[in-house]
């Protein structure tokens, strides 16, 4: 199935504004983020050494925030959209 991942701020700089990924049926939000992160040097922006989504990453799915720790428990459907945003800090 196909999912779209939209990135903002420094995640966009690393992974592009909007990417489509083909992932197996029944994949979770975590699977989709892992597919986006890949294995390049920017992967560590999104995932830690245990391949979990970093705690500061804001994951938005169907208008709601998904805690990174819960990203493995939510199965995606074809054509779903995930939004990734790093909290910004400047003032």
């Amino acid at each position, binding site marked *: 199935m196909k999912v779209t991942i939209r990135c903002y*701020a420094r995640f966009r700089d690393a992974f592009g504004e909007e990417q489509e990924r083909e992932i197996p049926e029944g994949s979770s939000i975590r699977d989709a983020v892992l597919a986006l992160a890949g294995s390049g040097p920017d992967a560590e922006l999104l995932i830690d050494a245990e391949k979990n989504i970093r*705690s500061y990453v804001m994951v938005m799915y169907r*208008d709601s925030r998904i805690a990174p720790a819960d990203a493995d428990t939510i199965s995606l459907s074809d054509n779903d959209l995930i939004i990734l*945003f790093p909290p*910004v*800090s400047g*003032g």
Partner: protein
Amino acid sequence: MNNQKFTGSSGRYERQISLIGSEGQKKLNDATILIAGAGGLGSPAATYLALAGIGELVIVDDDVIQESNLNRQFLHATQSIGLQKVYSAQATLEKMQPDVSVVAYPKRIDAQSANRLIKDADLVIDALDNYESRFILHEAAWKAGIPFIHGAIEGFSGQLTSIIPKSSPCLSCLIPSAPPVGKVSVMGATAGVIGSMQAMEAIKYLTNTGSMISGRLLIWDGLSGRIEFMKTEKRKNCQVCSE
């Protein structure tokens, strides 16, 4: 609360009294707002709040003006480089809007100063540039039951939410741990957008107009022109707001 100068007859507020009424204008004039940060967000937020007729602005910032601030921090002029930001902000705002009383605190926010600063405020504008100070000030505001209008920016992006004690999730529910710190690039207009929205949130709250951006995080992306709203919920065992 402050009690000064507004009589309802000033032409200065004519174009907004038609929106919020004389009662609304009086509420603005009676209000004291703490503005934490006299930088990129603080410049537009303080300016629009002063121009709207807020009675008293208390501005806190321990920083001095550097040349690299001047692409966005329009309360400060080139000749003010090296001065404390709060005094420059105070002078600019009082010249622009003689109705407003501006109190300047050239101090860093810590647990003690946060409680002291919050004490007389009706609302807080979070125009800070770091999460350490944000978390301290937010917790003090939450415990005192004072609304906290959070904004933050980076590059062409910004975020905003209004935290209303007892009705919305708190800042620690939304951002449990601070994101990694690095040198922050920012386009001046990004600060203008988010800082202006913070002023709008404050005006809406004080005059009970419209609906607040509360219980949701506004994410603004200047490069695409997109705005996203992300629903937020209370976090179990939140150290700040769990009862």
